[in-house]
């Protein structure tokens, strides 16, 4: 994508393990957000981190942002089978433009 990428493309872990996925971006952002998509559905918002923040938590989710490296990571702790989905980061630019990448497909094995 012209706007950046998520990696890995696919991740398979056992239930109870932690899952980490990464997001890179190329241009300046107002904030960065993470979304989840279940198969055949629209994306659902998980968490937002502003460009002046470095870390944010929400339940089992932890997001970090490194603006010097233009990268973010999403950590899901103590994963569950229900966490199986695709995860996307949204690079939010001026003008409220949201750009997504190819996402990370997470499979949590019971």
């Amino acid at each position, binding site marked *: *994508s012209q706007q950046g990428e998520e990696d890995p493309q696919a991740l398979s872990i056992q239930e109870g393990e932690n899952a980490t996925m990464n997001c890179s971006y190329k241009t300046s952002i107002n904030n960065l*957000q993470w979304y989840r998509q279940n198969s055949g559905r*629209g*994306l*659902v918002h998980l968490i*937002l981190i502003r460009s002046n923040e470095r870390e944010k938590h929400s339940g089992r989710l932890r997001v970090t942002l490194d603006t010097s490296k233009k990268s973010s990571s999403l950590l899901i702790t103590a994963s569950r089978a229900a966490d199986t989905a695709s995860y996307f980061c949204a690079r939010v630019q001026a003008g*409220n*433009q949201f750009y*997504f990448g190819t996402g990370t497909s997470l499979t949590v094995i019971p």
Partner: protein
Amino acid sequence: DAGITQSPRHKVTETGTPVTLRCHQTENHRYMYWYRQDPGHGLRLIHYSYGVKDTDKGEVSDGYSVSRSKTEDFLLTLESATSSQTSVYFCAISEFDFKGNTIYFGEGSWLTVV
């Protein structure tokens, strides 16, 4: 769930025919978007709108046009459909509030061009 309705949800059309997808929102959000999602390409922005009659191009706008004559409706038109436009199309809406800006997605429209 955000009040976003996409229609039609599924459509099969022939190459060269015009196709219009409709997005209707009941949230009175200022911003509306059309994305397409394809394997290996992720979610790509086609066009977006920042108000009635105010639209702009996204990453992959060639072959698509949009119109927004009312706050609640955002139409995506394929003037002459091609097989490369076979995809899942998502409409989305967004607004600024005290929490920031979050984008909400519709359930998608599956378009097959044969």
